């Protein structure tokens, strides 16, 4: 099998599409992270304007959550429509008269205003020009001492009304209500980066975030092209009649596809490592020299495996470029679903988990368990899909699914035979 794998790798290395792939990876890296060298993360100084680059606080206080939730609810109530994101693209949900009344009562309860006066005050508030809200005579605000549990109950009811993808779940509210860290928080974030992440970890995480976007789509083009090329050269019958088993053929091809796809990524991942090494010279920071392997193999390899395996299966089944369309749809959905969790920690089951930041180690640590499960899922999925492909391949070899028509579509009727 290894000689077959080697041959497959060589074939891929000789193809035009592979080098276009590599060029895409390089260009993408350079455009997103190319300028990092001069702007590496340093320790925060006291009295800075803001510490936004050091991320957001790990969580929000109940008061912050309630304030944020109220402001969002008020806006939606006023416009009579809410934005939800069931699959990432905005889906507007309009509320009915009855629903508006119900929410109005909630608002009245939470702000301490009467329902009718609330509407009038809201009207005035909403009509204020941009930026002057804070000077207004009345601002929608939570009543003092409002119970958090009651608040959550209200939010729960709002979620029911609006359907999936609304922003009023407790988790989402917590996530969105967070404010940027203060000096203490920034210090902690930097400390995490240096001690827990070995400095390189943060940068490789960012690298994985960006490259993950490409890994969720480009390997599909590679594998689809490879398999369809087989058909163009009419190699099917030649390969089918050889003594190599389907399992060996399919596995060798899949492994070759995965290896060739991840190899340039590993090579490029050396770049941020170098940036970090250069930065850390003389600072005494203890770098994690293995960070690139950990992230390349742990974070980026599973989607490469899954995308390659799926591409193989769909192409073998359909014998058309359909796998590309399938992968584009999956890719789109994954990207859109990740939009609300860009700063990291909220990995879920996404093919492309997002963590668009060098810091937020806290989010990473919290989400780590889920991330591991997520990555294992896709690796396992790849194995399952490969097994399915082996089944299909074997069936084709035996003459089923043949679209050349001789078996399936050209049956003689019994009186003609």
């Amino acid at each position, binding site marked *: 099998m290894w000689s077959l794998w080697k041959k497959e790798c060589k074939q891929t290395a000789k193809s035009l599409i592979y080098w276009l792939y590599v060029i895409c990876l390089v260009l993408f890296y350079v455009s997103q992270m190319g300028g990092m060298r001069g702007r590496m993360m340093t320790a925060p100084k006291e009295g800075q304007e803001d510490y936004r680059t050091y991320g957001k606080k790990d969580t929000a206080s109940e008061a912050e959550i309630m304030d944020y939730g109220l402001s969002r609810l008020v806006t939606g109530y006023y416009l009579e429509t809410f934005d939800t994101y069931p699959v990432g693209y905005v889906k507007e949900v309009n509320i009915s008269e009855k629903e508006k009344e119900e929410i109005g009562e909630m608002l009245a309860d939470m702000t301490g205003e009467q329902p009718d006066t609330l509407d009038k005050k809201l009207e005035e508030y909403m009509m204020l020009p941009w930026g002057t809200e804070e000077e207004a005579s009345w601002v929608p605000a939570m009543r003092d001492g409002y119970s958090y549990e009651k608040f959550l109950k209200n939010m729960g009811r709002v979620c029911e009304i609006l359907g999936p993808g609304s922003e009023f779940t407790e988790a989402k509210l917590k996530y969105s209500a967070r404010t940027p860290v203060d000096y203490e928080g920034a210090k902690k974030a930097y400390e995490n980066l240096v001690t827990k992440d070995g400095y390189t970890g943060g940068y490789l995480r960012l690298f994985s975030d960006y490259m993950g976007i490409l890994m969720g789509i480009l390997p599909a083009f590679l594998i689809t092209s490879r398999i369809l090329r087989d058909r163009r050269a009419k190699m099917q019958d030649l390969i089918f009649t050889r003594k190599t088993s389907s399992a060996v053929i399919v596995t060798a091809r899949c492994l070759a596809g995965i290896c060739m796809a991840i190899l340039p990524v590993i090579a490029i991942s050396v770049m941020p490592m170098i940036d970090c090494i250069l930065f850390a010279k003389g600072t005494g920071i203890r770098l994690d020299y293995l960070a690139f392997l950990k992230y390349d193999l742990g974070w980026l390899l599973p989607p490469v495996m899954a995308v390659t395996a799926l591409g193989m299966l769909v192409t073998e089944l359909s014998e058309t470029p359909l796998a590309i369309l399938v992968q584009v749809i999956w890719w789109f959905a994954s990207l859109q679903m990740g939009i609300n969790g860009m700063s990291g920690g909220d990995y879920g089951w996404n093919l492309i988990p997002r963590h668009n930041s060098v810091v937020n180690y806290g989010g990473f640590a919290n989400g780590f368990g889920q991330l591991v499960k997520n990555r294992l899922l896709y690796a396992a999925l790849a194995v399952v899909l490969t097994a399915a492909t082996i089944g299909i391949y074997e069936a084709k070899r035996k003459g089923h699914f043949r679209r050349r028509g*001789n078996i399936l579509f*050209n049956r003689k009727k019994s009186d003609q035979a």
Partner: protein
Amino acid sequence: MLYTANEERVRHMNTTVEIRHLDKYYGRKKALSDINLTIPAGMFGLLGRNGAGKTTLMKTLATLLEKQKGEVRICGIPVENASQIRRIIGYLPQDFSMYPNMTVYESMDYLGVLSGLGKKERQKRIPLLLERVNLSDAQYKKVKTLSGGMKRRLGIAQAILHNPKVLIVDEPTAGLDPEERVRFRNLLCEIAEDRIVILSTHIVGDIEATCENIAVLDEGTLLFTGTVEELLLAVKGKVYKAEISRSELEKLKKRYLVTSMLTMGNNVIVRFLAEKQPFEGARHCEADVEDAYMYLMQKRGGKL
């Protein structure tokens, strides 16, 4: 209608293909070198090894490839006037294929449209042609379900659909079974009655059975042009048959060109070429085209 007026004109054309000093390069490689040929009406055979340049020459005649030097005229029309040429030629490529999901009839119809035939014309001719190549029963079958022989027959049918003056057929019988091969040859002979049929092949038997005039191509140059008789003259009296023991075979092979061997127990009956009587027991044989071809290949480059 496009065709009836043309058919008049075509009938009065002089039916020859003239090639003068044709050169064709693929990048640096010279695929055809100083080809000079005059092909009259009837069956013309182009014989040569694989890679000799036969397909290149065929494609150049069919306006699918551009020549670098020289002049090519088909029925007086220079090959640069591609659209005019394509009206009067029919081409059957080596690995003929059509869109897999079209039926036989649909393929013929579509190709007919592409040749500029009108609807009535197509409705008249297609059933006749399918009948002639024995594909009438298969006319609603999809192309992808056809056997090799059937595909080839469809290929011929589409090549003569628009009644071309010149038919260019590239290795039409390769891969066909003996029966199909004979049927194909006969069909081509019928078609050649008032047309030029240029047939390229590396199967000597095809030439023998059908062609009067032939050319032999090797590595892009013509080794021979002329009639089959003229070719045979070259090896007249040079073909011998002998029965020898197996141990003597190697020695014989080193000295003479062996064109066939038949093992009978401990002895071998060899057929070989020699300039004069080689030894006792060797007997003269009637030369055939294969012998002549082998002889030519051996001499390589020698003009007759």
